[in-house]
């Protein structure tokens, strides 16, 4: 039976997650003031997620399925007003895990997983001239004896500063297009691998973003993820497809991050305006609302709608049903509301919303990236349009 009510224990977990997230509210700008420091493990007064974890034991097996609940949890967590650690997605598990770890798990050989599984791995795809169009990447890898030699530049590497190494996309045959692209594990300290800089960003400053340079960078031959050194004719290689599959799993999570910032900004606006005597009476007809009340209704409806698409995409994955299209839908919606809702929340709050006295402007800055990384809203629409129109990626570009 379709149901949208949370069980008591799930509601308790979500409430606690928000309370834990709010425990650092007075440090909320810590990372902005200490942009170049290694953040402390625990800030003064910070409550930890260890108080949440035992509650999971109280969940019944027939409750909201786990992936779906994790997305609800991610939305709740990101809507809190304290510091955000990393990208603020999901819940810290104690062990560092970057996007590269997900790629290793989905495309690595058993030996590679065993060898590198405990490292903190970033994902390095984007180049100065190549973003969403990943098949156009310029970084090359050439086999020389028992080593691969990498040359090229990479940017926007999430966790690229603090990671142990990165999964780097490079082509072994430029003429082969997508089929020539392979992923390589490059550890920090490899000869010819340089961490060029840490980017300064609009938001998500607690998540470091690095630029890399590879100049005749030499890595062992077994660093090719999946181990397949051949270039298949026609179509992408298994390792390329394997890594692209990573995104099916991560898009709902990234979308939840966008929704969470919409939720946080909206909750702030609702609370703040209620203190000024403005609130929505849900029993009244649409025509009876003031302009500000109507705006709040629209922001709430948009946020709710986006949240439901995230829950739906993750619920499908819980049910072991395909969710490729639904992952793009939720990513498009999450990307939309991370922009429109914090902007709208500031609009109804007026001038004081820009002040660093309040957290609401930070939701806009932290949320804005959600419509860019893991595939822009435009890329998601391209994927959806191809799917519903029955066009290949060559037919609709």
């Amino acid at each position: 039976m379709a149901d949208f009510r949370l069980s008591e224990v799930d509601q308790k977990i979500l409430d606690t997650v928000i309370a834990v997230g709010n425990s650092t509210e007075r440090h909320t700008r810590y990372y902005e003031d200490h942009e170049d420091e290694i953040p402390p493990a625990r800030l003064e007064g910070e409550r930890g997620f260890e108080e949440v974890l035992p509650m999971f034991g109280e969940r019944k097996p027939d409750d909201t399925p786990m992936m779906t609940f994790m997305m609800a949890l991610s939305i709740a967590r990101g809507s809190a007003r304290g510091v955000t650690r990393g990208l603020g997605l999901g819940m810290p598990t104690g062990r560092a895990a970057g996007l590269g770890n997900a790629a290793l798990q989905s495309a690595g050989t058993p030996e590679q997983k065993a060898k590198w599984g405990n490292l903190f791995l970033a994902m390095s795809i984007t180049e100065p001239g190549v973003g969403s169009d990943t098949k156009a990447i310029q970084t090359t890898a050439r086999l020389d004896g028992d080593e691969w030699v990498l040359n090229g530049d990479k940017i926007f590497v999430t966790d690229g500063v603090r990671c142990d190494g990165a999964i780097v996309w490079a082509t072994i045959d430029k003429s082969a297009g997508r089929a020539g692209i392979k992923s390589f594990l490059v550890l920090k300290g490899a000869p010819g691998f340089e961490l060029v800089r840490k980017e300064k960003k609009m938001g998500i400053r607690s998540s470091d973003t690095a630029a890399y340079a590879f100049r005749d960078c030499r890595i062992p031959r077994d660093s090719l993820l999946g181990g397949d050194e051949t270039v298949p004719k026609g179509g992408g290689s298994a390792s390329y497809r394997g890594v692209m599959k990573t995104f099916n799993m991560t898009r709902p999570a990234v979308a939840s991050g966008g929704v969470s910032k919409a939720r946080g900004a909206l909750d702030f606006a609702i609370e703040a305006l209620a203190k000024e005597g403005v609130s929505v009476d849900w029993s009244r007809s649409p025509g009876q609302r003031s302009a500000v009340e109507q705006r709040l209704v629209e922001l709430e409806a948009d946020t709710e709608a986006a949240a439901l698409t995230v829950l739906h995409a993750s619920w499908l994955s819980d049910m072991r049903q395909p969710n490729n299209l639904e992952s793009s839908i939720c990513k498009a919606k999450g990307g939309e509301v991370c922009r429109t809702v914090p902007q709208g929340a500031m609009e109804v709050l007026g001038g004081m919303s820009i002040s660093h006295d309040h957290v609401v402007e930070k939701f806009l800055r932290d949320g804005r990236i959600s419509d860019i990384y893991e595939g822009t809203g435009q890329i998601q629409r391209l994927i959806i349009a191809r799917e519903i129109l029955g066009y290949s990626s060559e037919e609709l570009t």
Partner: protein
Amino acid sequence: MISFQLTDEQAMIRDSLKGFAAEVLAPTARAIDEAGEVPASVIKAGWDFGLLAASVPEAYGGGGAERSCMTNAVALEALGGGCASQGAAIMAPGQFVGALLDFGTEDQKAEHLPQFAGETPVACSLAIQESQFGFAAENQRTTAVRKGNGWILNGEKRLVPLGGQASQFLVLARDPDSSGLGAVSAFIVPRDTEGLTVTDEAGTQGLKPLSKARLTLTDLALPGSARLGGEAGIDALRLVSQARVGAAALVLGLARQATDFAIPYARERVAFGEPIGKKQSIAFMLADMHIECETMRWMVWKAASLLEHNDPGAPKAAALAQDYVRRKAVKIADDALQIFGGHGFIRDLPLEMWLRNARTLTVLDGPVSV
């Protein structure tokens, strides 16, 4: 527990109604729209699915299935995907039955429910709308005043669905000495009640074949037993929310239908040497239409599901679904027309009809309920 899983029965109802909508409703939709009348045979064919009879308790001769707002939402979307006008005509009596089940006293249920368990379609509906622009259910002008053991109703109801045929109406009226939806009651009014004048409406932009009437209530005297729920009355917010979500569910089906109609056209229609679907300006419109059809469905389902469980969050979810669908469904119907260009404006194709119906269903409370 969060779940998007329909019950097996709901999935079965959805599939059979989708087939009916595609094979029976859609092919005749334009002709019926031009003729301005839903044929009795269509209403009978819809009735024969037994949705209403199933929800009537066994004690009154029905199927005894649980009354389900979710099932109604699923059914409305399926029918709306064939023809919103015919879907509305088929489902409008459900407003009357649902309200009886939710709020009726045992005596009222015993008196009125058995007729819906039979094989002959019964026409009846809910009268909410009034003449004034900016109409709000909580500010309605139709009044109900106690007189002795009974009630005196005065006022005017407009655009009442199935008005031409209905044997009885559920009329909303307000206590003139009080305000808000808490002051609103519902009264069971047989068509032949003295003081009730029923006249056909002149015409409407959308849902043209759905009969609509103006009810004029002049010192209309009703016995105490006519007030739905007796002394307890009704939860008018719940009733109105069900009508809002009902209209949203129906227009959701229409939006899906318009999207599915535009997709193959975008593949066929060639401009500047290639199908217009290969141009991002059109492809992205279609992607957005698809995204919003999906998204609207979850908003409607959440509201319907919470209404079904009489959850405290239901009125808010209903208001959100109404707001969301109101903005998105009209845009989808409008964009579908735009993709067809001038052809969308010609009455040979259903595009302009869908836009009129979408606009209609997103400004009226009702004419169907979940």
